[in-house]
C-alpha cells in the first residue's frame, strides 16, 4: 500500500518519556480537551454531566472487554473477528443460567465459560486446522446468531441483575465519585482487568512469550516456546473476556436477552483495539471515547434540545469509528505474525 516515509530519527533514539509522548500525544490532547469540556459543563449542568459520564462508563465496558478479547488473540498472532458471536452467545447462556438458577455469580461464570469455549473453537480452527482466520471468526458469528435465535424462547423472565456497589467515602467525591465508585461488579472487574492484562502482557514471562509468538513464531519455537499452546491459551482466555462482555449486557446493563442484542459492539471493539494500538491502556482510552460518543448520542436523542433527525445522531458512533480508523490505523503497528497460521518445520 501507500508506504509511509520512514521517520528520520528512529523512535528508539529518544529517551523513554519522549518516546511515550510521541506515541500518545494525540490521545493526551484529546483527553485534556474533553476534561476541560466536562469541567465546564459540570459547572453549568451537574446532573446531566454526571449522567452522561455514568453512561459513558456503562457503554464503554463491553467495548473494553471485547477489545481485550481481540487484543490477547492478536498479540499471539490470531485474528478474532468472532468477538461479536462470543459476546452474543455469552450473553445468551449467562441469561439462561440466571433464569434457571437465579444465581448471578453462576450466570456470569457460565457466560465466561461459553465465550472461552467459542475461543477454543476459534483456536482449533485457526491454529490446528489452519482455516483462514477471517472465515473462522465468521463461522463463530453466524453460529452464535443461529444458536441464540433457535434456542431463544420469548417470555423468559430474568431473576434480577447485578446491582451497583457504592464504595463509601470515595463515592462522595463530587463528579468523579458517582461516576467511578458507584458501579456494578463487572464494571469494576473490567478496570481491574485492563491493568492486570497490561501488567501480564508487558511485565511477565507469559506476556513476553505471547508477544514473541505473535511477532516471530519461528524464533519463539526455536527457543522452545510452544507456539500452538500459547496461541490456544490466549484465544481461549480472550474468548472468556468476550463472554464476560456478553454477560455484562444481559446481567448488568439490560437485565434480559433479545435476539441480536450485541448490535455490532463486537466489531466496534475491534476498532477500539486497533485505535488503542494493541495495548490494554490504549484500548481503555479508546473505549471511553466511543462510550462518550454513544452517551452523547443518547443524551442528544432524548434530551430533545436540538432538532436533528434521530437517524443522524444514531450513526454518530459508527461514523466516528470510521474517521478514527482512517486517521489512525496507518500509524498503528500490527503484530507481525498476526493472522498467519504457524507451520512447524
Amino acid at each position, binding site marked *: 500500500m*501507500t508506504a509511509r516515509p520512514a521517520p528520520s530519527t528512529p523512535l528508539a533514539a529518544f529517551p523513554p518519556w519522549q518516546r511515550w509522548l510521541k506515541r500518545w500525544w494525540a490521545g493526551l490532547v484529546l483527553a485534556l480537551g474533553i476534561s476541560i469540556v466536562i469541567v465546564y459543563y459540570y459547572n453549568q449542568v451537574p446532573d446531566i454531566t454526571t449522567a452522561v459520564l455514568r453512561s459513558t462508563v456503562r457503554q464503554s465496558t463491553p467495548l473494553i472487554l471485547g477489545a481485550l478479547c481481540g487484543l490477547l488473540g492478536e498479540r499471539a498472532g490470531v485474528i478474532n473477528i468472532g468477538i461479536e458471536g462470543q459476546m452474543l452467545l455469552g450473553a445468551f447462556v449467562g441469561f439462561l443460567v440466571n433464569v434457571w438458577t437465579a444465581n448471578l455469580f453462576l450466570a456470569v461464570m457460565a457466560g465466561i465459560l461459553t465465550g472461552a469455549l467459542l475461543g477454543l473453537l476459534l483456536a482449533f480452527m485457526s491454529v490446528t486446522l489452519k482455516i483462514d482466520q477471517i*472465515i473462522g471468526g465468521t463461522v463463530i458469528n453466524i453460529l452464535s446468531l443461529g444458536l*441464540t435465535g433457535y434456542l431463544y424462547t420469548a417470555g423468559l423472565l430474568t431473576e434480577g441483575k447485578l446491582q451497583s456497589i457504592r464504595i463509601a467515602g470515595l463515592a462522595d467525591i463530587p463528579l468523579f465519585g458517582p461516576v467511578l465508585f458507584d458501579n456494578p461488579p463487572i464494571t469494576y472487574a473490567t478496570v481491574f482487568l485492563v491493568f492486570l492484562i497490561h501488567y501480564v502482557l508487558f511485565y511477565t514471562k507469559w506476556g513476553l512469550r505471547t508477544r514473541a509468538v505473535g511477532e516471530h513464531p519461528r524464533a519463539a519455537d526455536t527457543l522452545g516456546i510452544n507456539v500452538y499452546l500459547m496461541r490456544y491459551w490466549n484465544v481461549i482466555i480472550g474468548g472468556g473476556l468476550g463472554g464476560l462482555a456478553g454477560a455484562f449486557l444481559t446481567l448488568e446493563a439490560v437485565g434480559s436477552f433479545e435476539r441480536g442484542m450485541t448490535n455490532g459492539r463486537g*466489531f466496534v471493539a475491534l*476498532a477500539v483495539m486497533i485505535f488503542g494500538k494493541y495495548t490494554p491502556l490504549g484500548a481503555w482510552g479508546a473505549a471511553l471515547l466511543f462510550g462518550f460518543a454513544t452517551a452523547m448520542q443518547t443524551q442528544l436523542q432524548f434530551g430533545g434540545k436540538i432538532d436533528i433527525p434521530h437517524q443522524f445522531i444514531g450513526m454518530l458512533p459508527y461514523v466516528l469509528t470510521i474517521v478514527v480508523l*482512517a486517521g489512525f490505523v496507518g500509524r498503528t503497528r500490527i503484530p507481525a505474525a498476526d*493472522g498467519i497460521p504457524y507451520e512447524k518445520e
Partner: protein
Amino acid sequence: MEETPTHIQKQSTVRDVLASVWLAARVPIVAVVLAMLIGAVILLVSGANPVQAYAALFEGAFGDAAKFSRTLEKATPLIFSGLAVAFAFKAGMFNIGAQGQLLFGALVSAWLGFGIKGLPIYIHAPLALLGGAMAGGLYAAIPGALKTFTGAHEVITTIMLNFVAFNITDYLADGPLKDLSAGNIVARTPLIEDTARIGSLGIIPIGFLIALACAFGTWWLLRKTTTGFEIRTVGINQYAARYAGIRVPRTIILAMVISGILAGFGGAIETQGVIGRYQPGFNSGLGFDGITIALIGKTSPFGVIPASLLVGAMQAGSSQMQFNAGVAKEITDVIQALILFFVAADVIVRWIIRSRKDTGEPGLALSSGWGAK
C-alpha cells in the same frame, strides 16, 4: 497456474467435464451433508423430529411450482450478494458491506421507480435497476478509497458503513421519500410504477435470469479481460502486481465498486421484482448471507449459483418447517454456519472422502492479517 495445451482441451469429453465438476463440488456437497447431520443432532437434542423437520423444509422449498418459484425468488438477491462478496475476495478484499450497498441499491431503485412517471417499461425498469446498481457501487467506493489511501481495514469500515447505510435509508424512507398516502404511518416509500416492475416468465422470475447472466458476466470479466486479470493479480500478491506495473490503488477501488454494483443490483431487483417499494427491514440479512454463499461457492461466480439455490431453498422452506414441525427458522442459520465451517475446513472433508492426494486446489485464503499486505 498450470498451462493446459489447447489440443487437450479440445478432446475433453462429457466425462471429463463431469469429473472436473465433481472435483470442484465434492467438498461443498460433503460439507452440506455433514452440516445437515449435525443439524439433525441439534434438532434431536432440543426435542424436535429431524426427519419431519427436513421433510417440511424440502416440501416448503420444492413442493409445487409456486414454491419452487418462491425458492428462485429467494435465491435471486442471494446470487447477487454472493457474487458481490466473491468478486471482492478475488481482489483480496473482504466486503462485509454488501448489506449496506444492497440497501442503497434497493432504495434508489424504489425512488427511480415511483419518482419517474410515464416512461415505457423497457426504459423505466432497466433505468431503475441501473440506478440502484450505481448507488451500491458508489457506496462501495468509500471503503475502497479508505483502504487505499489511509489503510483502514475494509472489514471494519464496511461493517460501520452498514450501520450508516441503515440509518440513512431509514431516514430517507421516513422523511423525504416517505409514502404520504392516507393511512400510512410506517417508514416506507410509495409503491413503484408498474413500468418499473420486473415480472416473471412462467414460474421463473426474470430477476433470476438476470442474476444468472450477471454470474456469467462476472466470470467473463474475471477470466477473459485485462481488468479481471489485474484484479486477480492484486488479490494474489499486491507487491508482484505493483512490480508488474498494475496500478494497485485504482484496481482495489475498481474491484470494490464492481462488488458494490453487484450488491446494489441485488437490492434493486428485490425492490422491483418482489417488494415493490423500499421498506426498512425488508432486506435485512441478504448482504450477510452473501458472505456464507460466496464462501460455500468457493468464491467462484458459478459456485455462487448452487450455493444461493441451497440457501434460498432453506429460507423459502423454513416457514413451512416452522409451521409443520414446530422448529424455529433460525436452525437454518446454524446449518449454514456448519456448512461454512466444513467448506473452510476441507481437511476434515478430504479425510472423510479419503482423498489424500493433493489435487493442487487452493484452499480458501482471504487475508494475511490487518496490515495492507
